[in-house]
């Protein structure tokens, strides 16, 4: 998955998230068109109600559920807005939520808000910590009974891109986890 955030000169904004689900998707290549095909239908495997383990059959035309959240937050009074989204499969929502919390509530600047290591809660309610996540906080959470996932995720693929407009000032940041870099003028 990849995300692009754009803010235009008139204040219009676009957040767009595009996805190849897992790295290289279905790993099926069309040599004559040069197109790699995604494995979107894999997301059908995870849609079932909490009270049952039955997964309803696919419906032709159905769009599988997704973690993609290209979002725009607008503060009309202050003339500010945050154009944000991310990549990384099920980590997307955890990463975007923590970036928004860091930026709008905890006083981080945009680059710090994106770079701060994240934590994630998996389907079993266990906590997964991105490498370099604050050890002191991890210890404090364990003391409160939060259970850490035993199987550490081999690689955290979360990557957030965002543009923040605060009146006349425009800040843009791309995730260094993916060697990203934003541009502006």
């Amino acid at each position: 998955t990849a995300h692009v955030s754009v803010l235009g000169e008139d204040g219009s904004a676009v957040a767009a998230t595009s996805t190849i689900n897992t790295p290289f998707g279905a790993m099926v290549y069309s040599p004559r068109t040069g197109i790699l095909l995604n494995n979107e239908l894999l997301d059908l495997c995870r849609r079932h109600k909490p009270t049952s383990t039955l997964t309803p059959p696919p419906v032709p035309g159905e769009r599988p559920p997704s973690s993609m959240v290209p979002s725009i937050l607008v503060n009309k009074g202050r003339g500010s807005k945050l154009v944000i989204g991310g990549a990384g499969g099920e980590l997307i929502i955890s990463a975007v939520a923590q970036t928004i919390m860091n930026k709008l509530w905890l006083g981080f600047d945009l680059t710090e808000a994106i770079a701060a290591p994240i934590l994630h809660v998996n389907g079993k309610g266990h906590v997964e910590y991105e490498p370099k996540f604050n050890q002191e906080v991890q210890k404090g959470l364990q003391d409160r009974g939060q259970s850490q996932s035993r199987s550490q995720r081999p690689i955290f693929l979360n990557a957030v891109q965002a543009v923040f407009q605060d009146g006349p000032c425009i800040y843009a940041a791309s995730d260094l986890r993916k060697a990203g870099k934003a541009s502006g003028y």
Partner: protein
Amino acid sequence: MAWGSRATICLVLLGVVLGLVIIVLAAVLSHRQASCGPSAFTRAAVAADSEICSDIGRAILQQRGSPVDATIAALICTGVVNPQSMGLGGGVVFTIYNASTGKVEVINARETVPASYDQRLLDQCKNALPLGTGAQWIGVPGELRGYAEAHRRHGRLPWAQLFQPTIALLREGFRVPFILSQFLNNSILRPFLYSSTLRQLFFNGTETLRAQDPFPWPALANTLETVAKEGAEALYTGMLGHMLVKDIAQQGSQLTVQDLATFQAEVVEPLEMPLGNYTLYSPPPPAGGAILSFILNVLKGFNFSAETVARPEGKVNVYHHLVETLKFAVGQRWRLWDPSSHPGIQNISLDLLREDLAQRIRQQIDSRGDHQLSHYNLSGIRGNGMG
């Protein structure tokens, strides 16, 4: 003579006024730059996951392109620079804010289930996870129809102009980017890549391409040139679609040219939720906006601030509430099913934005993190790795 000296005086005055204007402008801009800080921009910006694609998006804006034009150009570029992450064989969701109308809309071009698919598909889930390789998992690609709809509604520059920078990138000595080379040489992915049809693209004999190896990818450059010239229809109702379907049918795909022809991007209202002084606009199901809104709506009620995290105990407290909220959120993911395919669950995602639900959840969050899974409505949940 008198006329001449009057003209001279006017010219001098004009010069002085112009000089003053320039000085004032420079002062204002430098003051603004100073007050915004060195890393700020003053007019526009693009944040993509590579510098080269952010630059391509910025150039489109500087050519008087619209933000949607810039986004499309940056996405086309990213499909080449980070092909492990996205491309024309995937799907895209746009959230678009129009400053002159204040309106926000979502364009959803996520892939769909084809008309015919492997009837035993979901029996293969357990063995397929986590990588999901194989043609049976291919949906109907939505990417280009998503671009076309966004451009039709919000584009300013000619469609072809959005493709030129990436075509030039490929035609003028493109080399394997570092991040792509990392994925190609990943010990988990590499054997799968080698035994797939991607071998012809990413391997030199038995060796994967390395960073900075030449990577011209002519087949994609040709496709981009055709789409630039003929539009998205070249893929959805034209020759490219026939070639694509034929290529992947040989690998077991049941995708048909009818699937491509009938694919439609949908334009929908965003979810809209007040978040303090902000309004959060996010994409409805099957995208994840309802879950994101739920998480932020619950957390908002704890009134975290920079002071909260100034003390270590305060930081632990913030993350404890975050973990607890994420646990409740995981238990709600089932609400993201596609409402157009599951009429029985129309709008159940809207419940997630309600303040009374957020209030109820906050009341269930105490200082302990070892409640039973049923406390969070998590019992029976398996891995939820939706991408």
